């Protein structure tokens, strides 16, 4: 099984090799499709063999030898409850984005599909890796194909968009790299026999505790990188550009997979390794998340470009996920994990749908449509379902995620004010406002432009792309238990362990000299000092 996981991750690279050998446009497409489809089918074996009740370590674990003598940096991949669903989402989106590009991409086919395949490997790698250096490598690797996808196959403003995207996220990850190196040496200093370690299993365990001061800096370094990636307000401005200019497949992968790397990183890295800082900054992060939810929704409301509207809606939706993570309880974190998948499905579907209409009319402006529901009824139905999923209609996936997050946040001990959840819930109203208003202006009313009279309804390929997503939207909406069961054990363990660790660190901090800001921030009074005073 562990071999199977590795095959899944690297199969797309074999596809790239195939493309290079074949040197033929038609073969390129088929090779890409077959490899990604095969990856998906193989990954199904993984989920079928995943032991839901297994606690502790990840499954399908591959552990390599340390790369450098004395440094505990090693190839370490496996899947656990935190990563499984996102990994599956990645493998599912693979063939879908390949098919979505089938007829719409016409230049440099070999390069295009090679980039998509590389992105696929990188994304799977991010979710599967359990050594933070390996994680970092995959994290950065995913930037490169996306940079080219936007820069070469993007729209008119692609250069500005891709440079902004690349540099912005790169700055974040470089700061993270600095933190990571510090973290590695720090961990090495408490380990026997090695100088450096980035093994997540050790870092996240109770055996490794970081002092409050270092935790603060390290949390800041990591959280910044992840928040840019999410993107959390106010680090979001690269997103509308990148989404608008990216080709359809790029937007889909960006929304469905890459943004999740940020929220996933917060959960995987920041919560268990810096539990005190995580809890202490939770109200601030929660506040940014809530602002993002409302702000993103309001800005989305007035967009004239459908794609940009969906991009801003992502800012709003991911605000929910971040809120759920920082509320730090089982319900909210489970909701956040599920919502990551949900957003991938519904926003992924929306970008696909926008791409389909763009392929036909070469415009994405709301004003260029109007009244086309009658012309393309199947499209209208698919679009409506994705819209309803996005606005969180019960019975569809988005509702479950939002409800869990908000309910969890409302009852959170870490962010105690109910106001967070209440204001966030306003986003539920606003989502209906901007989505239904957009849908109405695009689909309803009298036919505004004569060119739209002859629009072709969806063909079999396009329906085939959307149907799996629609099925999953309903499935998650009606039987979310089938999905939340995979992460249940892991989330509970993670929360309990980080809670214990947080209290332990807090306890030991009381015996230490702390700078004033730190003792104020963490509300820790030095026991020695207070004892002296009492005397």
């Amino acid at each position, binding site marked *: 099984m562990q071999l199977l996981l590795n095959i899944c991750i690297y199969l797309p690279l074999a596809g790239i090799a195939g493309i290079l050998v074949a040197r033929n446009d038609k073969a390129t497409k088929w090779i890409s499709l077959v490899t990604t489809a095969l990856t998906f089918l193989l990954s199904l074996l993984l989920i079928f063999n995943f032991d839901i009740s297994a606690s502790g370590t990840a499954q399908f674990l591959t552990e390599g030898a340390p790369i450098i003598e004395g440094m505990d940096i090693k190839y370490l991949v496996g899947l656990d409850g935190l990563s499984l669903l996102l990994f599956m989402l990645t493998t599912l989106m693979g063939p879908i984005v390949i098919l979505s590009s089938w007829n719409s991409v016409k230049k440099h086919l070999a390069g295009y599909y090679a980039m998509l395949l590389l992105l696929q490997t990188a994304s799977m790698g991010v979710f599967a890796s359990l050594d933070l250096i390996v994680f970092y490598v995959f994290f950065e690797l995913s930037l490169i194909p996306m940079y080219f996808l936007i820069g070469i196959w993007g729209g008119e403003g692609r250069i500005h968009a891709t440079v*902004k995207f690349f540099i912005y996220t790169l700055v974040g990850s470089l700061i993270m790299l600095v933190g990571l190196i510090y973290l590695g040496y720090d961990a090495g200093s408490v380990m026997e026999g090695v100088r450096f370690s980035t093994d997540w299993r050790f870092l996240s365990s109770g055996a490794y505790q970081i002092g409050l001061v270092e935790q603060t800096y390290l949390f800041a370094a990591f959280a910044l990188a992840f928040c840019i990636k999410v993107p959390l307000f106010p680090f979001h401005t690269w997103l509308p550009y990148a989404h608008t200019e990216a080709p359809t497949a790029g937007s889909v992968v960006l929304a469905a997979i890459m943004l999740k790397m940020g929220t996933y990183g917060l959960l995987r890295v920041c919560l268990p390794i810096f539990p005190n800082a995580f809890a202490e900054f939770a109200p601030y992060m929660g506040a940014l998340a809530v602002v993002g939810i409302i702000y993103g929704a*309001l800005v989305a409301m*007035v967009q004239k470009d459908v794609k940009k509207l969906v991009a801003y809606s992502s800012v709003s939706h991911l605000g929910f996920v971040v809120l759920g993570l920082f509320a730090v309880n089982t319900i909210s974190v489970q909701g956040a994990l599920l919502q990551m998948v949900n957003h991938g499905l519904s926003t992924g579907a929306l970008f696909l749908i926008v791409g389909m209409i763009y392929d036909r009319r070469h415009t994405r402006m709301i004003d260029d449509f109007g009244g086309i529901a009658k012309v393309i009824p199947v499209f209208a139905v698919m679009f409506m379902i994705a819209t309803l999923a996005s606005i969180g*209609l019960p019975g569809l996936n988005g509702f479950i995620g939002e409800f869990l997050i908000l309910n969890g946040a409302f009852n959170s001990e870490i962010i105690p004010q109910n106001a967070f959840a*209440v204001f966030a819930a306003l986003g539920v109203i606003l989502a209906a406002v901007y989505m239904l208003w957009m849908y109405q202006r695009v689909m309803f009313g009298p036919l505004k432009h004569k060119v739209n009279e002859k629009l072709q309804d969806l063909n079999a390929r396009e329906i085939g792309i959307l149907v799996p997503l629609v099925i999953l939207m309903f499935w998650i909406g*009606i039987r979310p238990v089938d999905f939340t069961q995979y992460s249940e054990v892991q989330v509970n363990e993670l929360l309990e362990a980080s809670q214990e660790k947080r209290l332990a660190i807090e306890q030991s901090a009381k015996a230490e000299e702390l700078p004033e800001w730190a003792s104020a921030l963490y509300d820790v009074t030095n026991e020695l000092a207070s004892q002296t005073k009492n005397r």
Partner: protein
Amino acid sequence: MDSATTLTSLIIILPLVGFLINGLMGLSSDSFRERKGMIGAIANLSVFIPFVIAVYFFLNMGQETAPVIAELFTWIDVGTLSVDIAYQIDQLSIVMTLVVTGVGFLIHLYSIGYMWHDDGYWKFFAYLNLFIFAMLNLVLADNLLLLFLGWEGVGLCSYLLIGFWYTDMAKSDAAKKAFLYNRVGDFAFLVAMFMTFQFVGSLQFDVILSNLDAIPSDAKFWIGLLMFIGATGKSAQIPLFVWLPDAMAGPTSVSALIHAATMVTSGIYLISRLSPMFVMSPEVMVIIAAIGALTAIVAATIALTQNDIKGVLAYSTVSQLGYMFLALGSGAFTAAIFHVVTHAFFKACLFLGSGSVIHAMEHVEHGLHEEGKEVHFDPQDMRFMGGLKEYMPSTYKTFLIATVAIAGIPPLAGFFSKDEILAFTFNAGFTEFAGPLYFLLWGVGIITAFLTAFYMFRLTFGTFNGSFKLPEKIEEAAGAEKHLHESPSTMTIPLWALGGLSVVGGFIGIPNFLVSTFTHEEAHINLLHNWLHTVTADYELGLSHSLEWALLVISVLVAVAGLYVAYRLYGSGATEESDARLAGRYGVFYETWKEKYSLDEFYEGLVVHPLVRFSDKGLAKFDMKFVDGIVNAVGGIIRLFGSVFRYAQTGVASSYALALVVGVLIVLSLLIL
């Protein structure tokens, strides 16, 4: 699965199956769409069979029977939150199920004729079935979250059906408006659920109701208030009622089913379901009663100025829903449900009757066009009608019956339910908290009863009495009356059925004192009270018999007075002249009523436009200029550094050597000094 579970799931699932068959087949196959008989049969059976099952349940249920719980599967199970897809059939939910499937079936039947010539016939029935599915989830759910699924589900169907003719932008606007106003209420509902879960740890009704002590009293207030705000959205009360009149943009059978008989009563059902909790916070009860009474009178005053036949009925619905909330707030949960039931009968009858009239008027317009006369008029405008009773006898008679019923004239259905509400309101005046206010609310209720009789008879007389106005108003339309016909029997049969129910429907709730006054011992002839007493937490009715008789006489007198005044003014069909007289006499008031209190303009001006403008001119600019501007500025500063230091990178070896020497000298001198 035992048989009760199987039958319960059949009730729920059949309408869904109907939706899927008609929806998917219709979407994918042109030939299927043409088989209208089959589509109609599938849709009708998907509602009729559940109705039969519901009747079976009803017949096998006694007053004390424990609820049937049908657990299908676990929906959500995360941490401490566990919610099942589970349904509960008890005395309250079976009443609602009978109304939803029974009246629902009659309206399905009616729609076959009404929608026959529409291109979207298949789609219409698919949506209608989906609505029944969602509505049944709402009334049968055994927990708040599943109820909420139905709650938003009916909202979706309402959206789809109001905007059924979506190529008309005004209609799709109305649909969107309905959805959004409902969402505002749903937001409050969501927060109420979070709070409930916080204190009870469950969303299941029986767990909540058996753990009411776990909820502190101020939380009870907030939960109750938030749920009521949710109800003001779905059940069209102040301040969120403005969507309902616009919702009449949908096909008329939709107005009858969704926007009169069933969906809009969801809020009343919700509060009745949780009545033991509501009675524990008298503050919320007062708020509910006051908002209900206010809505009742506001909507009634608007109704008497409208000329759109469906518009009058729409405001009438808002007003009647107000009565139901007045009942809830007065602790008369049974009376509220009673009025839900009777209102479903007579208002569905009225809407379907108006549909029959509109159908006929459209037919006239169509007929005139075929004669080559380009006559255009609004087929819903009363001012073009009049004298229709000659041409449409069935429609007229059933419409008249339903009007008498809604006006509260004994012994028709509306009389009993409205009288009970008013008696309970008066009764609540003797409670400790805010008692006297209830006397005032009773007064409002009585005035509204007068107005109800007045505007309903104005509508009936204006439509059916006097002479046919169309040929008088538009010269070209001379001889238009020959195109007037009664509607086909698929439409008139449901009218007669509903008309019959409007006559006898009230007998399920005959007040006990009618008998006990004479027998001098306790009577139990109020069937509905007996039936619901285990579920609803009604206040004790402590009025003396003489007082009850007095209240009854007063409510009959005002109804008759309303009828009389309406007859004097409108009996001859002189609608416009009498309207003008009223407008003259009531001046500013009449203007305000006619302008619907300018509430739409108020919301548009105060919330919608400022928010859009703020987002467009403010936030979107702020985002691009400021937030992104900072990012660009940081980039710019770095580039600036780069452009300065670039001059150092000359690539000339000798200048590097010079710099090196200077550097060494500086370092050395620092070390020496």
